């Protein structure tokens, strides 16, 4: 929620994040490199550079279309890019340092609806299983994708798209069938539609206090970024 162009505030955030990741004995490179995984989503923000009318800085001629780069748009885009890069790093830091079932317990403690908590739990559990199944499919395709010497293997783009489409469909069907088997396994052990949970890890008083301190600090930082910290 930092304002546009609050580069100083973003820099402070980055320093804080780096200190945190060093404390967690994670190399800062691991986080900053890992965070580029979200880079493709920035494409969605790219048009902002051209559609804002303020401060035209020059234009690119693309035949019938002329794109004008706007200074304001560039600032917005840079801010969004930095924010998303930092946000992904924070998320990575959290998942690197916290076992997943602790996160699930925390969501439950924070009164997230049980059905959502259950879905998140299932998703995490079966992501790896699904990934393996997809990998097997792709290996089967690769094993039969031979190319004769001198030949142009691979077929047409449409044909390849159809193969990929079939693979996705088959993966979906397999997952659907698996979900039915899992449901049968749950029923077999007495599941009647209500998710129950053992009182697992609960949030301790000290943790609530730490949580409150963090929230207050964040609000103060947010205010500072809006009111006092310089913006470019």
């Amino acid at each position, binding site marked *: 929620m930092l304002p546009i162009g609050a580069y100083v505030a973003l820099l402070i955030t980055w320093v804080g994040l780096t200190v945190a990741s060093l404390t967690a004995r994670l190399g800062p490179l691991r986080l900053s490199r890992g965070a580029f995984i979200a880079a493709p989503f920035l494409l969605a923000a790219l048009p902002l550079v051209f559609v804002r009318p303020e401060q035209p800085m020059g234009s690119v001629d693309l035949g019938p279309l002329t794109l004008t780069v706007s200074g304001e748009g560039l600032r917005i885009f840079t801010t969004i890019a930095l924010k998303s890069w930092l946000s992904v790093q924070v998320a990575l830091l959290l998942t690197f340092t916290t076992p997943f079932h602790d996160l699930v317990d925390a969501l439950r403690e924070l009164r997230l609806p049980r059905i959502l908590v259950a879905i998140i739990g299932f998703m995490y*559990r079966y992501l790896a299983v699904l990934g393996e199944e997809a990998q097997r499919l792709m290996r089967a395709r690769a094993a039969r994708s031979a190319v004769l010497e001198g030949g142009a293997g691979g077929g047409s783009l449409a044909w390849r798209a159809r193969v990929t489409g079939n693979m996705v469909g088959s993966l979906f069907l397999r997952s659907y069938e698996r979900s039915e088997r899992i449901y049968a396994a*749950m029923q077999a*052990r007495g599941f009647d539609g209500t998710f129950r949970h053992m009182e697992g890890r609960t949030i301790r008083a000290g943790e609530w206090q730490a949580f409150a301190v963090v929230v207050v600090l964040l609000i103060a930082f947010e205010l500072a970024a809006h009111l006092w910290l310089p913006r470019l």
Partner: protein
Amino acid sequence: MTQDTAPHDHAHAHEHADGHAHAHEHADGHAHEHGQPIQTDPGLDASWVLIEHLHYAYPDGYEALRGIDLRIARGEKVALVGPNGAGKSTLLLHLNGINRPRHGSLLIGGLAVEGSNIKRVRAEVGLVFQDPDDQLFSPTVFDDVAFGPLHMGIAADEIHRRVERALEAVGMGGFERRLPSHLSIGQRKRIALATVLSMDPSVLVFDEPSAGLDPRGRRQLIELLRSLSQTVIIATHDMRLVAEVLPRTVVMDGGLIVADGPTDDILGSEALLERHGLERA
């Protein structure tokens, strides 16, 4: 190596009518150890699992079971063999009410598998699925083994005791906080068994327990299966497992029971095995 090596007295000991003494002894030990809620009586023990005229058709009309009659004594160890599509898995899913019969009846320990009994039947019959990834759906091993007892409405400290005992029984003590995805297939199979042992069932039902295991994992599984005191029903293609663990064999084909008898006799009959697409151990 041939039919006549099958010892007669062995075959006799497991015939249904004569099985009382054997089954009875087991039932007593069992009742003592696990505190079974259901009273034991010799008549009931002789037909602990009782299936009569069971018919089942899938929603698309395919008749998977076409009249099954089966009686299994308490403590008996039974193999269910037959080609793919014979109806083995379909039958197993009836045993705790996942599939409901179109005609016929099922009784487990005297309880009809229907209506309001279903929850008690599910505590009585532990179903272990073929793929442990289907069976282990919780974030941690502990959550999975606790799932059954938790949904039976058991108190928390008792659940902790049961989870610990079930994991000990399958040789996986201390794995409570581990994630199922980080375990080997053999370990996952054993934990899948623990997830039903923690419900303290009197009948354990397995679908292809040895599929996908390497020789060592298979060996460990066989030892584990031999150590079980409960009534055990195993659907499998693994005839060596049958020969080693299960004294009685039921052969299914085309939705019917086509043979039922001492494993030595069944495995001794080449013609029978050939006819139903099976092989010797």
